[in-house]
């Protein structure tokens, strides 16, 4: 059965938390770029499409970031 696994993927021992942080960084930049281009907040599917990744990974990556961002905006704007 190990054979099937190796055949299907070879991601080794990289931690999910690390790639999620990388994804979070890319999402942040892409969100800004699309915001400027569209003149509105992009949706997560639009960001996923631009980055060519799964929407699922964006949802997970959002949690690895500071999620209180929206709070700050409201208090300090």
């Amino acid at each position: 059965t190990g054979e099937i696994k190796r055949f299907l993927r070879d991601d080794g021992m990289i931690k999910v938390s690390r790639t999620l942080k990388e994804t979070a960084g890319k999402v942040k930049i892409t969100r800004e770029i699309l915001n400027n281009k569209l003149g509105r907040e992009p949706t997560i599917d639009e960001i996923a499409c631009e980055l060519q990744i799964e929407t699922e990974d964006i949802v997970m990556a959002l949690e690895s970031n500071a999620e209180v961002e929206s709070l700050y905006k409201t208090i300090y704007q």
Partner: protein
Amino acid sequence: MSETNEITLEFDSKSKNESFARMVVAAFVSSLDPTIEEIADIKTAVSEAVTNCIIHGYENEEGKITLKCKLDKNKLFIEIMDKGKGIENIKQAMEPLYTSKPELERSGMGFAFMEAFMDKLEVLSTPGAGTTILMEKEIQSAASKS
């Protein structure tokens, strides 16, 4: 197939489950293709409600928290319930800056945030029996977002 979708989640009253509950709601609503801001708003509201169950409802003792989410077209309904100590005076509890635990450096802004970030907030509580929070938020479709 109908346009509604419904989930019920039961989890332990542990602070690490606050982040988990937040992710579950984010995952659930992601099928409506929201913006990151909409997700952040919803997560903040869920965090505040779940934290209240843990800190105030169960006062850090063991207990179960129930989270229900429902989507009806592009409207999200969230219900967060504990069977903890309940709230004596709901009106007072909902006042911005009011906290019954100033010694924990609570801000007293939990309910204010839930109200600010969601379209609707309702608090039901029976002292000694528990508390249920009902929230609603409409997700704008991508088409109407521009």
